[in-house]
C-alpha cells in the first residue's frame, strides 16, 4: 500500500484542498489589494501599477483621518458598553443559571437567527424620533420634542453594541464556567467580605461617569446626573461588590473579557452597516468610506490603501494579543 509506506503524506493530503482555497482566496486577494493600492488610472481606461503611487497612503490617511478616529472611538465605546452589559449577564447565567442555563445561552445567541440587516433596521424603528421608546417619552414630557437619537453617534454606537453583544457574553460565560466556582466560595469562607471602601468608591466613579455620559446624550444637567449616578453606584458597589469577586472571580474571568473585547472590537472597527442605517453622513466610519470608494466611486487605489491600513492595524493588535494570551482563547468564543 502506497499510503502505508508514506504515512507522512496523509496530513498534507488532508490539508491541501482547504488550505489551497484559503491561499487562493484569502492570501492572494490580500496581496492583490496591496498591489492595487499602488495603481493609478480608472476603471474605464484601465489601471497601471507604479511604486511612485506610494503617496496614496499619506493622502488617504490625511483625507480620512476623521473617519479612522471615529471608527476607533465608536468601536471602543461599543466594546466598553458590551462589556458592561455582558458581564453581569454572563455571571448570572454561569453561576445562577441552574436548569435554565442552556435556555438562557440560546436566548443570547437567538438574535443571530434573524437577519443582521433586519435587526439593525428594527433599531431604527425602536429609536425613531416618535418610535417605540421616544414616542411615549415625548408624550409624557420626559424628553423635549426636538430631541432625537436616530442619526446621531449614540444610535450608531447602540446599534454596534446590540449587534455584537453575544460575542462578548459567550467568551466571558465560558471563562466563568470553566473557572472553579468553589474558589469564590472558598474566599468567602476565608472571611473575604464586602469590598469596602473599594466597592463604594469604584461603584460611585463608574456609575457617576455613566450617568454623566447619559446626561450629555440626553441633554440633562450633567452635574446633577453625575451626582445621582454616584450615589446609586456607591450604594450598589457597597452592597454587591465583594472582595471574593474582585480578588478571585474577576481575575479568573479576564481571558474571557479580553477575547470578548477583540471579538467585538474587530468587527465593530470595520463595520459600516450600523453607521449607514442608523447614522448620518456625519457619523460615517472608515468602513463607510471603503465601501463607497470601492462600490460607488470605483476609486480602487485609495480604497485598497484604506483597507490595507485597516487590516494591518488589526492584525498587529491581534498579534500582540495572541503573543500575550495565546490564540486558543480567541477562537473559543466563536465556537458555538
Amino acid at each position: 500500500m502506497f499510503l502505508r509506506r508514506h504515512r507522512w503524506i496523509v496530513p498534507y493530503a488532508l490539508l491541501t484542498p482547504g488550505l489551497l482555497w484559503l491561499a487562493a482566496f484569502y492570501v492572494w486577494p490580500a496581496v492583490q489589494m496591496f498591489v492595487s493600492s499602488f495603481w493609478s488610472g480608472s476603471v474605464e481606461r484601465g489601471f497601471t501599477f507604479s511604486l511612485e503611487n506610494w503617496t496614496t497612503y499619506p493622502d488617504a490617511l490625511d483625507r480620512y483621518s476623521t473617519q479612522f478616529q471615529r471608527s476607533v472611538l465608536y468601536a471602543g465605546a461599543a466594546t466598553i458598553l458590551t462589556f458592561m452589559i455582558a458581564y453581569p449577564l454572563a455571571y448570572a447565567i454561569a453561576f445562577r443559571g441552574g436548569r435554565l442555563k442552556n435556555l438562557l445561552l440560546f436566548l443570547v445567541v437567538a438574535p443571530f437567527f434573524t437577519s443582521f440587516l433586519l435587526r439593525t433596521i428594527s433599531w431604527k424603528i425602536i429609536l425613531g424620533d416618535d418610535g417605540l421608546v421616544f414616542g411615549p417619552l415625548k408624550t409624557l414630557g420626559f424628553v423635549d420634542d426636538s430631541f432625537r437619537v436616530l442619526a446621531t453617534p449614540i444610535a450608531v454606537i447602540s446599534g454596534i453594541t446590540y449587534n455584537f453583544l453575544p460575542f462578548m457574553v459567550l467568551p466571558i460565560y465560558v471563562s466563568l464556567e470553566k473557572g472553579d466556582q468553589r474558589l469564590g466560595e472558598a474566599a468567602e469562607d476565608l472571611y473575604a467580605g464586602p469590598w469596602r471602601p473599594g466597592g463604594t468608591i469604584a461603584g460611585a466613579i463608574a456609575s457617576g461617569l455613566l450617568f454623566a455620559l447619559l446626561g450629555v446624550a440626553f441633554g440633562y444637567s450633567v452635574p446633577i446626573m453625575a451626582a445621582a449616578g454616584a450615589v446609586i453606584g456607591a450604594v450598589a458597589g457597597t452592597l454587591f461588590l465583594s472582595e471574593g469577586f474582585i480578588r478571585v472571580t474577576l481575575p479568573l474571568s479576564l481571558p474571557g473579557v479580553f477575547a470578548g473585547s477583540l471579538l467585538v472590537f474587530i468587527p465593530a472597527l470595520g463595520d459600516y452597516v450600523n453607521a449607514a442605517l442608523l447614522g448620518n453622513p456625519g457619523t460615517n466610519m472608515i468602513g463607510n468610506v471603503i465601501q463607497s470608494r470601492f462600490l460607488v466611486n470605483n476609486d480602487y487605489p485609495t480604497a485598497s490603501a484604506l483597507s490595507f491600513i485597516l487590516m494591518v492595524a488589526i492584525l498587529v493588535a491581534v498579534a500582540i494579543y495572541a503573543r500575550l494570551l495565546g490564540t486558543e482563547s480567541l477562537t473559543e468564543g466563536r465556537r458555538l
Partner: protein
Amino acid sequence: MTAVAATAAKAPALSVSVRRLLDRYVLRLYVILAVAYLMLPIVVIALFSVNDPIGRSNFAWRAFTLDHWLSPFGVPGLFDAVATSLRVAFLSTLIATTLGTLIALALVRYQFRGAGSANLLIFLPMATPEIVLGASLLTMFVSIGEPPFFPLSEFTILIAHIMFNISFVVVTVRARLAGLDRNLEEAAMDLGANEWTTFWKVTFPLILPGIVAAALLAFSLSIDDFVITNFTAGRTVTFPMFIWGSYRIGIPPQVNVIGTLIFLIAVGLVALSVVFQRRSARA
C-alpha cells in the same frame, strides 16, 4: 465582653444575608431585562410583518393584516433573492464543511511540520474584518478581469462564502475531535479493523455531531452574510442584498415575513436537535 463579641459576629452575618437576598433578586431582574433587550428587535421584525403600511415605508405601526403572510413572495425579485441565498448557503456549506473537516482531522490527528503555519492561515480570516475580506476579493476579481471571476456573479459569492466558512468549520470540528477518547479507535484497531474501517465505523460517527454543528453554523453565516456579499455579488441579489437594495425606497413587509420564518425555522431546528439529543442520551 461577650456582648461585644456577639455583635461583632452578628453584624457581618446580617449584611451578608441582606446582600445575598438582594443579589438573588437584582440579578434575576437584570437577566430578564437583558433578555428582553436581546429579543426586542426580533419582536419588532415579527410585529412589522403583520403591519399594513401606507405606501412603501414600513417604519410606523398602522393596522394588523395577515396579507403578507399569505403571499410571502408577493414582491418582484424576493423569491429569486431567497432562492439565490439558499443555493449559495447550501453549496458553500457542503464544500466548506468537507474541506474544513479534512483540515481539522489533519490538525488533531497528526503531528507534522508546518502545523503552526496551517493554524495561522486558518486563524487569520477570522481575525480580519469582513470588509477587508470582501474588498480584497473584489480587487482580485477585478484585476483578473475575465470569466468566471469577472464580471462578478453567484460563482464569486460562492467562492467568498466557502473561504470565510472554512475557518469556522475547522474550529468547530477540531473542538469535537480534541475531546474524543482515542482509546475507542485503538480498541477498534486492536480488534482487527484497518484504518479506513475504523474511521468510518468509529471516528466518523463520534465526530458527526461536531460536523453537523459546523455545517449549521456555516449555513447560517452564509445565508445572513451581507458585507462580503456586497463586495462580491455584482448584480446578483441575495436575500440580504435585497433588503439593502430596497432599504432606501422602503422595505416591503414580506421581507419581515421571510426574516421571521427564517428565525422560526432556526429555532425549530435547535429545539428538534435538543429533543433528539435528550432521547439518544436516554437510550
